[in-house]
């Protein structure tokens, strides 16, 4: 991706803001030198985060690929640390996307099914509203008790959280399809199935995009929540483990990783969906800059 001319002039302020955030953090680390635990600064500066902290992440490498783990007595190395980051990130991402796909598919299918005719909607609406208000993250312990701490438990949790969002999003989007499109298709003699395929589904796609963005955020939160309470790998596990020992610098490193992954997944989705939804009007910001 080569920046187009003018990229700098449009984004310099945002980049400056990010740089300023990083700078403030570094300055804070000098001013505020209190420690959460002996040798663990409350505000770890960048030199610590990308030095000692990165190296210490080798603790999370379980061995293999010719790189011995710290538990086996090997000294921590950057190779082990990088491998630890990759393998734990991979675990989390696999859990996230398995759950995301399962939940999105189930939620969309159910949402379309209840929109088929008016009465199931009426029946389903209020319980759905209730399920939606039930705080997802507070239900982690329940899912753990039900599905255990294995892979399936985490995926089920993510899928549930995302399924509810998609279900609500799709049901709502179908209701918002302008009647005129439906009437128009009917006058052409479209059957109900054709109507769904050619009118309703394309018409709800833009709203599904917003739903997907919401689901991505929820999904990242859910997978970490699931890992937080019982897992032997993954970014959430790294955070729990670090928190127990007040390794604030490690938590910070994982948080950075997290911001990176989340931003990349948003940006990627944004790009792909924009291309798919080229026909929708660009919301050109015609702001009166007076």
């Amino acid at each position: 991706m080569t920046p187009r001319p003018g990229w700098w002039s449009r984004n310099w302020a945002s980049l400056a803001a990010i740089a300023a955030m990083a700078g403030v953090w570094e300055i804070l680390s000098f001013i505020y030198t209190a420690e959460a635990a002996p040798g663990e600064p409350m505000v770890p500066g960048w030199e610590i985060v990308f030095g000692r902290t990165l190296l210490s992440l080798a603790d999370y490498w379980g061995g293999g690929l010719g790189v011995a783990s710290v538990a086996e007595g090997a000294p921590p190395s950057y190779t082990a640390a990088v491998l630890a980051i990759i393998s734990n990130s991979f675990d989390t991402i696999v859990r996230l996307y398995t759950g995301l796909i399962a939940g999105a598919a189930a939620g969309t299918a159910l949402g379309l099914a209840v929109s088929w005719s008016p009465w199931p909607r009426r029946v389903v609406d209020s319980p759905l509203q209730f399920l939606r208000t039930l705080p997802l993250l507070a239900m982690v312990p329940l899912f753990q008790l039900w599905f255990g701490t294995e892979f399936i438990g985490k995926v089920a949790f993510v899928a549930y959280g995302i399924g509810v969002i998609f279900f609500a999003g799709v049901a709502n989007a179908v209701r918002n399809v302008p009647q005129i499109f439906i009437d128009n298709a009917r006058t052409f003699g479209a059957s109900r199935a054709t109507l769904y395929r050619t009118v309703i589904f394309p018409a709800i796609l833009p709203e599904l995009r917003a739903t997907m963005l919401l689901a991505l955020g929820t999904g990242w939160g859910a997978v970490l929540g699931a890992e937080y309470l019982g897992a032997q790998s993954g970014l959430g596990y790294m955070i729990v483990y670090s928190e127990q020992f007040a390794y604030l610098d490690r938590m910070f490193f994982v948080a950075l990783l997290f911001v990176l992954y989340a931003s990349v997944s948003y940006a990627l989705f944004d790009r792909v969906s924009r291309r798919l939804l080229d026909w929708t009007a660009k919301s050109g910001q015609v702001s009166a800059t007076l």
Partner: protein
Amino acid sequence: MGILLLLALWQALTSVVARSSLPTPLSVAIRIRQDFIHADQLSFYGLNTGLLDSMAYTATNVAAAVLMGAVVGAPLGLVTARFRLLRALVDPVLMTAGTIPIIVLAPFFLIWFGVDRISAMLLVAIFVTVILYVFAQRAADNIDPVYEESAYTLGASRARVVRDVLLPGTVPQILGGIRIALAGAWGLEAIAELMGAQYGIGKIVQLLAGATDVEGIFAALLVLGVVAVACDGLAAWVVARLAVWNQPARTGAE
């Protein structure tokens, strides 16, 4: 009717699934009554409280956090929608804050500010701020420029335009944002308490999860859910009354 269906489904499931992992609706209802003022099971963990007190604690935190988030987020969103430079500066900061799930952020706050009310409140407030920032900004982006142009040609100053056009024109969306933020805040507060707190519904769930007391967890979550739904209904009612001008047109006859 839908709620009855949900209850029936739940009851039916209990006959298939082991009682220890899915309690019956009736037993949960009894449990709520038992634990309402004082929960005996919690005394073992040194927590002398009941669902009512815990719910009150959680609700206070949520209310305070939503208020804080709304007061900061909404005006910031409106202002950044009209000042491009400010927006470029604030956007990345708040968007980064918005992408970090509470699970990642919470441990920092618990270490920095202690296992106390203030940590949970700040955590929830940050997320509410981001939501309202986004809602207010989007509302200001979407408001038809003709209103501002009209105000300027009538001689309005910039401050007047913000007060008389931008603010009232975006109120419906901002109120909608507050409703959404409120709905989400319950879960965030609960998880923040679950990760580290001395009181609250989340704390109860955390303790009971340790004791694999599914019935108790159900009771606590159900109370939380009912209060959340009730508050949402109340918010919807208030929203409908506040933005009078925005109600659907009745008739428009000349």
